[in-house]
């Protein structure tokens, strides 16, 4: 048991960036997400200064396309998933002025459909994940007026299920990740009155299994990444006390690779940046002492979010 191996996790994240083996190549197309996961983790652990910010920004700007959207890596197509990560990283660095915010927000606005939903890119896949990405991104850029917020909210509400949760599209099954996206977007747009907090809260708190970990849907195995999706949703609707926080903290700490750093989905599995981020972010939501607080809706450190919205 014991505590969080901060130094080892920091070193693990710094090393991952340099790796070029088969596994890293498979992830090449989501490097932009990787940057956001890794850098946010470093920020939460108070070690962002270990990164050459200018080099990261220089690489990121090479991923931007003429339309304003960002790809997952150089040469990969633009998509709202990577555009949000790019904006989040620039916010983290306090370098939003590097960005033509007007152009980026026009790109995002162009993805909204008549029914309020959002496509992920020009190919028209529709999913409430993309609603969250679009709304979060525009809010960070102070450009929500670019879209029809009311329709966007109505579309998300149309994906609400009778168990209180939310799915990808109307009729889609509730899933903790999807719930985070929908509840997060509703929080950012001041629309939480559409959420049945008690019904959803019970569904979410029942994601905690005997080991203390959280799963993402009923009758599934626990996984560290749900420490984020479930916890952030529970916090946004003020029902986080319905789970056992100490047991969850122990579960996350048990998933650390104490030798080489990094956090995995379950104890003794292989680690990766994604689960390292969600483990650390989960500990932050659990008020673990050595980790800076993170905002449950914008998925960025609280002081960074406060700077954006109260920083005048």
């Amino acid at each position, binding site marked *: 048991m014991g505590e969080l191996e901060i130094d080892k996790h920091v070193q693990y994240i710094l090393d991952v960036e340099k790796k070029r083996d088969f596994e890293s190549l498979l992830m090449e197309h989501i490097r932009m997400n990787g940057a956001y996961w890794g850098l946010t983790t470093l920020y939460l652990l108070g070690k962002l200064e270990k990164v050459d910010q200018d080099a990261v920004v220089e690489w990121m700007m090479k991923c931007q396309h003429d339309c304003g959207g960002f790809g997952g890596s150089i040469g990969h197509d633009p998509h709202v998933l990577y555009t949000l990560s790019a904006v989040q990283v620039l916010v983290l660095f306090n370098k939003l002025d590097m960005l033509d915010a007007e152009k980026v927000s026009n790109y995002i606005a162009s993805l909204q459909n008549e029914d309020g939903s959002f496509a992920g890119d020009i190919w028209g896949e529709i999913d409430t994940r993309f609603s969250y990405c679009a709304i979060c991104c525009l809010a960070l850029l102070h450009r929500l007026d670019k879209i029809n917020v009311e329709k966007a909210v109505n579309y998300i509400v149309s994906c609400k299920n009778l168990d209180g949760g939310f799915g990808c599209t109307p009729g889609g*099954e*509730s899933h903790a990740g999807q719930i985070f996206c929908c509840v997060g977007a509703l929080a950012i747009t*001041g629309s939480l009155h559409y959420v049945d907090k008690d019904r959803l809260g019970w569904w979410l708190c029942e994601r905690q299994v005997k080991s203390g970990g959280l799963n993402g849907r009923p009758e*599934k195995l626990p996984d560290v990444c*749900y420490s984020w999706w479930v916890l952030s949703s529970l916090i946004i609707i003020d029902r986080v006390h319905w789970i056992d926080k100490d047991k969850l903290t122990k579960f996350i700490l048990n998933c650390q690779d104490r030798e080489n750093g990094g956090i995995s989905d379950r104890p003794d599995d292989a680690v990766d940046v994604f689960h390292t981020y969600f483990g650390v972010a989960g500990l932050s939501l659990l008020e673990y002492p050595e980790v800076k607080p993170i905002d449950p809706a914008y998925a960025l450190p609280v002081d960074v979010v406060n700077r954006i919205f109260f920083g005048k």
Partner: protein
Amino acid sequence: MKWNDSVFYIYEEVSSFEEFIVQSTQDTKMHGQPRKPLKPETAESIAKATELANIQSQLLFNHQNKIYDKQALNISSRLLEINPEIYTAWNYRKLAVQSLLQSLTDSDSIKPILDEELKVVESALRRNPKCYGAWHHRRWVLSKGFSSINNEFLLLDKLLKLDSRNFHGWNYRRFVAALKNVPAEEELRFTTEKINANFSNYSAWHNRCTLLSNLLQAKAQRFFPREKVLMEEYDLIHQAIFTDPDDQSGWFYYLWLLDETVIPEAPFLISSFPAPGSTLHLFTNSIMEGDLPLILYFNQPVGGVNSSTITVNSELSICDPIWKPISANKSGRAQAWVTYLKIPNMNSYVSKLYLVEVVIGHVAGIVSSNSFHYRYPSQFKFSLHSQDLSVDSDEKCDGAVVVWKDENFVIEGDVIKNINSSGVSFEAVEINKEHQTMVSNWSIGAIENEINLFRELVAEIDCKIGKLTLARLLMALDELMVLFNDRRRHSNEIMELYNELIKLDPVHSRYYMDERSLLIIDQVTSSRESMVQHCSFYKGSKPMSFSSSICLRLSKLSLTRIGFVERLLWIQMLDLSHNELRSIEGLEAMQLLARLNLSNNKIRSFTALEPLRLIKSLRVLDISYNEIGLHSIDTTRYLCSTPLSQSTEADRKLEEYVNDDIKASDSWEAIWIFGDLCLTQLDVEGNAIDGERFGKLVVKAIPTLKWLDGMCVR
């Protein structure tokens, strides 16, 4: 019943993130991979990486240069075979198909091109059945209208046999069912098959719930009357829950069925202030400057409450009353609505009786959030009795510090008599007969039947869902019976169940405590007799604005949350101290509240006090000895309208305060909450806040404040 098939189990291993946010190979790369010691790279692994790097860069090159020849296409399908998550390769193939189809018009030459795409998707799904990009590619191809939809159903049958919980499969099934216009009834039958094959299938229960709820709402043939349909569903769900009570698959479906059984669709009025048939004594002075709140409280949030849907008849002057929703959100809907009656200046009056009649819903327009209309036009009366009691003015009352000590509360005089003249009633609001018969017979019978079954289950097995369901059923029955003024309650049995649940399932103990807290408030407030036990007079206090000078003391009851506020609308002084409250959600409906004691609770932040912003009558507030400032994560940050949730009102308000001393990012919560209150007395000591800085801020924010932590500040 669970894990009865090894393939299913394997999919469990890979079932989380790949179901989710970013399209990537996480199912194979990020989940369920055993941790191995770091090994040096071998020649073989280097070769593998080089090959992947090569085809990846070839694909990007072809994409950039719009090369769509056979060889280039093969490279992309080879790449997608190794890594189906590489989304740009799917985009590339779509562009290639578009370019190939450009010159073609006859379906004989178009179809083979599209069939090839379906093959590429299939091999990708074999590698990762949860690959977003592959599924979308398939939809894109199908939408062209050249492919056989029946084939898709066959493919889905295979896929859902391998993993009956693959939600991509279910989503895709809904997509092709819509393409083919498959009737909802047929899809419902498919869920029956899946459930009969294995009860432990949340995805099937979910789909069933959605389909059936639509069919019931549309009153579709063979789905009417709903009572018959619901009874059949109870039979089905019993088999699931009683076979394996620990399997969650049916839990949420059962809760939906319970809702369908007891919750009437149409909204109705459950309480008001002043209450129907009640008498309210008025005294010569009021905090409201002669305005008496008239509150209507519905069973669910409604919109459309206005002077055309509600008529108020009285000799009192009511100049076209404006009804306001008591809610901070911008939806225009609320459970509680308020308007103000103009009470004439009564200084010269001796004694006079006014009769007020409220007529509700004779004109259509009151509507619930799921678009059901208020269907029970009704009316009620109450009387206002003005009396000349030469009492001291409020000025004097407010001038003295309120001290919440036990010795200051006495039961002198006649509490019951005072309650009786407070505009309160303990009878249920009468709803018309049509409504009563609708909810009554079948619902009550069904619930009683369920109660018997679950009592048997609980007697047999010590299972949490059995106990929780039984507690919920008993609560639901009690609430139904209240509508008929039947006050027999199952409080003791329910309390016992929650106490057992807290021990049985400690991980979720706080959930059960919250439910228990509601039960405690229900017990205290359900009858005049129990309420009287908790009422006393604040010593030396003269009657406040309206007749009641009673303080409701709900301290030391282990309350963790508030409920049944509709029964407390008449209260002006409330003591909730020494509980474990972390939320006061719902309290905003108490529009007469002037003095509130929340000391010694577990309130974690100023934002948790948001409901108080809506109580304009509040003057005295004690929030000392809570946990404000103690926690790094604020769980009510988003339940409060602020710039974080795009409130421009809040933006403006904050700007007024920002100067060299006060940074908005540190103090916005306090400014936002207190800036709207007209307090004269505030106690905050015993919280983790910087007293001196907070003092400066709050004195500026509340111009009416006289006493802060017992010190005179003005």
